[in-house]
């Protein structure tokens, strides 16, 4: 998406010129870390979404959970868990997510939820497990609300795990890269409950573990871990 810092800033300015929404404008005006920054000095926002399905054009977001990482520590005070209000009912996915229609009725409109997310994401790197899926839904939401794409540096813990397993000489697909299975490899506790915020925290902890295993206490540039698409 962006090969160099100047390209990112260039896109940032281009988006800014076209955008007249105040939330998106202040997001785009924030300073994002350059690719050469030591990854430990970068702030991240671990995000997880619960959706009604896997198709970003027909399904929608039920809830958003996020938690920041600062100085390689998960900062619980920055965590939020937002239930999204939507016209459609929850349907079958209630079984999976434990979210029921009554939770949704008193819930926050998507536009407000996205405003909270973008505010928290200012100047940070977006951290996702299986980025492609969640990112598609976030892009869809931004297009609908701000008529703009979401410009954001992304780190994908699933892709990092894939790389690691590949480097260890394991064939792709031979080991599970599901969040829970990845966590087991780092002796991380098993969370029984399952919601957007717990999974965001779980992703954040997995990321800390991956970084410890990959770089130990040595510095490394952010570009080493950014997802390239």
């Amino acid at each position: 998406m962006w090969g160099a810092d100047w390209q990112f800033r260039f896109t940032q300015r281009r988006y800014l010129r076209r955008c007249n929404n105040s939330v998106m404008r202040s997001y785009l005006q924030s300073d994002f870390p350059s690719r050469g920054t030591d990854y430990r000095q970068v702030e991240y926002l671990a995000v997880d979404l619960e959706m009604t399905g896997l198709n970003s054009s027909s399904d929608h977001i039920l809830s958003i959970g996020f938690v920041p990482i600062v100085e390689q520590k998960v900062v619980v005070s920055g965590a939020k868990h937002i239930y999204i209000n939507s016209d459609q009912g929850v349907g079958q996915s209630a079984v999976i997510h434990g979210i029921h229609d009554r939770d949704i009725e008193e819930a926050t409109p998507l536009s407000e939820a996205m405003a909270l997310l973008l505010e928290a994401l200012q100047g940070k790197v977006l951290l996702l497990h299986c980025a492609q899926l969640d990112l598609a839904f976030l892009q869809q939401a931004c297009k609908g609300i701000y008529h703009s794409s979401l410009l954001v540096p992304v780190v994908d813990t699933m892709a990092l795990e894939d790389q690691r397993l590949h480097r260890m000489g394991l064939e792709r697909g031979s080991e599970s890269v599901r969040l829970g299975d990845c966590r087991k490899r780092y002796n991380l506790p098993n969370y029984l409950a399952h919601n957007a915020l717990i999974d965001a925290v779980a992703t954040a902890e997995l990321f800390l573990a991956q970084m410890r295993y990959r770089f130990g206490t040595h510095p490394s540039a952010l570009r080493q871990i950014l997802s390239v698409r």
Partner: protein
Amino acid sequence: MTISVEVSAVKNFLSQCTPFNQLTEAQLIAASTDVQIAYYRAGDTTDILDYSSPRLYVVRSGAFEVRDNEGQLLDRVEPGGYFGYPSLLTGHAITNRLVVIEDGLLYQLDEDSFRQLRSASRPFDRFFNQAHAKRLHHAVRFREQNYLLTLRVSDLSSRKAVTAQSVETVAAVARRMTDERVSSVMVVDDNNKLCGLVTDRDLRVRVVSEGRNADTPLSEVMTEDAISVSQESLVFESMLLMTEHNIHHLPVLNEGRPVAMLTATDLIKSQKSDPVFLIGEIGRQQTVEGLQNISRDIPELLRSLIRAEASADQIGRLLTTVTDALTRQLLQQAIEKLGKPPVPFAWLAFGSQGRQDQTAISDQDNGLLVSDAMTQDDDAYFKALATYVNDGLDACGYCYCPGGVMATTDTWRQPLVSWKKQFLSWINQPSSKALMHASIFFDMRCTYGNQKLFHDLQKTVCEAASGNEIFLANLTANALKLTPPMGFFKNFVIDRGGEHKNTFDMKLRGIMPINDIARIYALSVGTEQIHTLERLKEAVSRKLLTLKDARNLIDAHEFISRLRLEHQGERLKEGQKPDNHLDPSTLSSLSRHQLKDAFAVVTDAQSALRVRFTRGLM
């Protein structure tokens, strides 16, 4: 709520940890919100503690060690455990270091949050002040006469609470008291909180003698506002309460709800497990039955010593002291009965009693050494003496030796000259088969009788054994047959089937190899030390072992012995027969690591032994 800031994974974990479980819901949410989470890898040391700002660290997963600046181990911390609080409490700079033993997550709370929680919650404040005091006293060794004072009410094995509702009738409750064989019931309200107490005495005084009906409700006869204690109180405090108010029943509460009843009998029992008391009592018994009664308290003695965190070495010595006292008292009773011995004799203890490392399960291993002045006819006397003592020990729970190593066996009841001959044949014409069962004889100690006879025998043994290469090589070859239960991939090797499936024998595979090593070093230079740790120290002063190797072996011996004692204590608590079979999967990950380290030490020491004593002979 549509937007929530509560991270349930963090809050739920903290709510399981004392003292966080004592916080109100609002305080708990505030605490969990302030948490920062970090991850560390095994071996990390450098960048964990933030020396510029002290914090409270809560271990969420993994295992950590706190060491002082000289590397001395201060504390091992596992999930739910804390460190960092001393600097927060004292304001002194952080001087300790942290070592990560196993990958894990650390929750951190900064100084402000910690201070707020302390001022908001008294239990929270008290917990960390006490924890700090405990850490300071970490180095203070156990003192045997003191442990009763530190025992808590929850440590005493008292019966589970028998409760009743206040609307129940006196008749119904009296029946239940009979069925449950208790002398009191605790009356509880709808919330299961204590509201009264009814004892046998109340039934007598307030029901029968006042001529009340059997269908009188409990509320009319119970004692309201009964004096009670929390399960965290000290036994000592409970004793004072009982004496002060002249009562014999104390309800034990957890947050107002009855969990057990502490009776005066429980307190008397707890005193009985004081070793000084026990040995004093032994000396007063004139019959085997009397000794038998006292020996029933030995399991409780063991349990209370384990709770008091006595070292395995101290526990072994104390339990052996009790066995020695029992043996001596039995011998005195026998002499009282049979008359004075015709010639001098010495009672010999072998094996674990000889080494002073007895545990909950100890068979008898003993023998009788008689002066060479004995005549053929004198043996009848000594046989009767031996029978009395061996039977008495068996009655007291020290089973007959399955291998027959007891003074009643003719071979092990001999004049000095025959004992010498026996030892010299083991030493001078060794075969590993003959030596296989002989090693316990080389751990011998005289527990009663003529010490001169014993020293005479011991001197002969030591002189013959020291420097005897063929004998030592055979002994070593036998010792090396028992190896620690470690597989090639540093995994535990366990029994795959049978009665002790998934376990290994801690005595056979862990402690005996160390005893063997110590014995061989001791015999090689002819020292008279019997105790394994003393033998190892002696080996250092004789330059057979380096100080470091000896310390490692001593630590390994202590650690494995301690695990074994704790295992036996657990089994005793559950009413099972104590044994040596440990299932490693029941250990915490930290203990597993340490056990592997201990076994590695034993394996190294065995290799060193092989090089030194077999020299390719075997």
